[in-house]
């Protein structure tokens, strides 16, 4: 598939486009980037993430003379369809999107439709710090990234509960159904195909099915029926005891957090180990909230930044992506007081000064230290997620 990138690059050259920057010649990239404006499309629903992005924009402008504008999306797919529409309209040289925060299905869709520039990511100077051994930075939901996107942050499924109202939360998916029976209406998960809602389904599937090998291959009908049967039985049991009896669902992770803040639920799921801690610091959740992981391990993945094929500021976008991978930017991002997203770097292998930045980070009230996060389970193949979402829609999305 690396071949694909070259074919695409050749296609541009043939189309008369200006030559794309070559990340292997980094000085030339820096030179070309100076004065460019990078329109970075990234989900804009979180104030602290927006603030972090604003900080990195200021730093990149000061250090490299690249202007960065954050385009705040309410859904990443808006930018994906934008690039697709531009391709249809023949806009190949200066599209609206220069850098895109992306992963999973969105990446798979863009890669398949030939909407991405690259490969470039593994030629970035700061790539040398990336933890390629232990973190899934070269595959995105089992789809090989092939240098078309640079890793940015890690995420892992955690649960948080209000210890004042629910002192004994369940530590396994099977136990969750029992807990909900004892505490009806006090747990909710976002409605699939919301990202977090679908992740919750996959977490349950991996645990209840025992995590067979079939989950990590493209979906096979025979396997699908057998592997998912325990999940549907478990959901049938859980659903009547959900918030509102499963007749309405929160639409996203933030809405779920709002329910927790309003005292409507006592237990919630998150894909951000530090979400609860930052919410406590931000007066959004009470100080009695605690974060924990399931005993059998939880799903984790990496999110990335990618450059569309028709960006007019590819050099600037690469400079920004490289800055985002720097130990300084990664350490700041990992600080729960700022954002609290996990790093994609190999902290142990960093130079002393850089490592010290990570070691100085304090876990806030309600948070969970990285060493307590337990085993990370890999994401199933994306075809499973698509099919699970469809079946969930048919079974629970419209049934009541």
């Amino acid at each position, binding site marked *: 598939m690396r071949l694909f990138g070259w074919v695409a690059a050749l296609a541009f050259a043939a189309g008369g486009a200006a030559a794309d920057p070559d990340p292997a010649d980094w000085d030339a990239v820096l030179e070309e980037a100076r004065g460019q404006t990078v*329109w970075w499309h990234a*989900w*804009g*629903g*979180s*104030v602290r993430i927006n603030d972090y992005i*604003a900080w990195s924009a200021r730093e990149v402008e000061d250090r490299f003379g690249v202007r960065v*504008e954050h*385009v705040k*999306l*309410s*859904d*990443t*797919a*808006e*930018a*994906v*369809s934008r690039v*697709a*529409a531009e*391709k*249809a*309209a*023949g*806009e190949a040289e200066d599209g*609206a*999107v220069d850098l895109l925060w992306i992963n*999973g299905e969105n990446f*798979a*869709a863009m890669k398949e*439709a030939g909407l991405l520039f690259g490969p470039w990511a593994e030629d970035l100077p700061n790539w040398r710090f990336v933890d390629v051994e232990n973190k899934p930075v070269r595959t995105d939901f089992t789809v090989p990234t092939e240098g078309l996107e640079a890793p940015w942050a890690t995420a892992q499924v955690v649960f948080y509960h209000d210890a004042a*109202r629910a002192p004994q939360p369940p530590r396994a998916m099977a136990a969750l159904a029992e807990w909900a029976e004892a505490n009806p*209406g006090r747990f909710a998960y976002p*409605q699939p*195909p919301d990202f977090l809602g679908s992740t919750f389904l996959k977490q349950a599937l991996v645990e209840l099915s025992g995590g067979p090998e079939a989950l990590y291959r493209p979906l096979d009908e025979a396997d699908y029926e057998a592997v998912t049967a325990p999940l549907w039985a478990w959901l049938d049991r859980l659903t009547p005891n959900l*918030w*509102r*009896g*499963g*007749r*309405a*669902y929160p*639409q*996203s992770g*933030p*809405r779920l957090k*709002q329910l927790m*803040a*309003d*005292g*409507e639920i006592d237990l919630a799921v998150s894909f951000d180990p530090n979400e609860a801690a930052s919410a406590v610091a931000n*007066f*959004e959740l*009470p100080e009695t909230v605690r974060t924990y992981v399931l005993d059998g391990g939880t799903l984790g993945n990496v999110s990335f930044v990618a450059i569309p094929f028709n960006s007019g500021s590819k050099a600037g976008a690469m400079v920004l992506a490289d800055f985002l991978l720097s130990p300084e930017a990664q350490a700041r991002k990992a600080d729960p007081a700022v954002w609290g997203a996990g790093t994609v770097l190999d902290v142990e292998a960093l130079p002393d000064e850089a490592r010290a930045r990570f070691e100085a980070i304090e876990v806030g009230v309600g948070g969970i230290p990285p060493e307590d996060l337990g085993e990370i389970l890999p994401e199933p193949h994306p075809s499973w997620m*698509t099919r699970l979402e469809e079946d969930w*829609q048919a079974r*629970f*999305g*419209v049934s*009541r």
Partner: protein
Amino acid sequence: MLGPVAAGLAGAVGPAFGWAPELGAAGVSLEAWRTLFGWPGLARAAGLSLSVGVLATGVSLAITLLICAGWQGTRVWRWVERGLSPILAMPHAAAAFGLAFLIAPSGWAVRAASPWLTGWETPPDVLVVQDPLGLALVAGLVAKEVPFLLLMTLAASAQAEAGRTLLVARALGQGRVSGWLKAVLPRLWPQIRLPVYAVLAYSMSVVDVAAILGPNAPPTLAVRIVGWMNDPDLSWRAVAAAGALLQLGLVVGALAAWRIGEDLVGRLGRRWAEGGSRWPAAAEGAARGAGLPAAAVTAAAAGFGLAGLAVWSFAGLWTFPDALPDGWTLRSWARHGPGMAGPALATLGIALAATLVALGLAAACLETEFRRGRRPGAGALWLLYVPLIVPQVAFLPGLQRLALAAGLEGGWASIAAAHLVFVLPYVFLSLSDPWRAWDRRWATAGAALGASGWGVLWRVRAPMMLAPLLTAFAVGFAVSVGQYLPTLLIGGGRVPTLTTEAVALASGGDRRAIGVWALAQAGAAAAPFLLAALGPRLIWRNRRALVG
């Protein structure tokens, strides 16, 4: 007006029937329609769109008519008018958020009564917001549509000579309400028919309000369409396009059914009016009495909703069941305030440009009509209404593609042009009736004093029309401020406005951030209304009759 809509619709027809070159599909197929009709929730989603739209329109219309019939021309009426017009300026999404926080089981109303009255330490697990029948959604729409219909009815009343007609009816021994319904409404109806249709079409296809207040298992058809449109798997765009066409069909069908219903009600009404019977005094009193609380509840729902958001924007920790936050802080404002200048400037600039152009176009049309002495036919009016009646989800993606192909996207100017499509109908509507109601004899008097046609326009008509001109400006401005999809799609996200920022933050559900941005957005939309209310008073301090 028809051009952009038709071009946009064409952009939906292609993908719906399998023609989508960017996805490598060039041919004709019914695959998208098969998938659409295979969705198990389709019948209920479509049914919801219908029932919510018809119910919201019916209730809004009933409240509007009851207030007008019972109170027009009284002191109470002035008060109702002033209370409702700020709500008109509130963006739909902000109003919906405010209402959601007000009526939810953990919302402000329950907090105010807990635990001292209800005994609840945790909120009850009842489905109020997002109920399967969409009643919360209907309530949210009614709160926003009543002020709009009132404004439109008000504008039309002058031409229909509501006051004198009512006087005649009452002289014939009719009660206030029944006399109004029998004599004034039939004269008024042709002029408020199109606004009512716009409300019906909007209520059926609204996305932002429905996503906040509406049910989600299944959601309304429009919300589902946007979900498909945003699916990472690009092949769902074809299903979204098919859904958008189905949505358009539903709206057209509902409008046709409404039209038939109108005829039926009209026929029954005529028999009632010609029968000459009178309502007993008790019925009159009840009808009059019902209008007022209905209007008060509408205004209170929107007002307290906005107040709730204002409190959130200054709140520290605020948990259930506290009626007010534990602590107060300026942090949310300090956090967002500095970044607000750019988007605020863009919002004002675009709204100013779109509204001024719309005002100029509307005035030019009306003046031409005045000088030629010819009224445009119903067809021309329909044309104006097309952008309000065709669901935005159906034609905006196609319009975006058109703008891209023409190299028109990205700048303020093209966004303002896209806004113009939605601003012009409202400006024209609110300006046309006062313009036409102007007494021709003023022009004759002006001409007799030696003024040319332009002189009459600038020196006689314009000063006299200051109040309606400012009102039309305020309405258009508010419409432009509230636009989300056109700004995002045509601007490519490169021009952030207060609304695009507010909607992006709304996806994160942080009430403090939503409060700050929604207040800023409402403020931007409300400022021209203030100007419209105060401007004539200040400028015409010494010419009281011109204040209007």
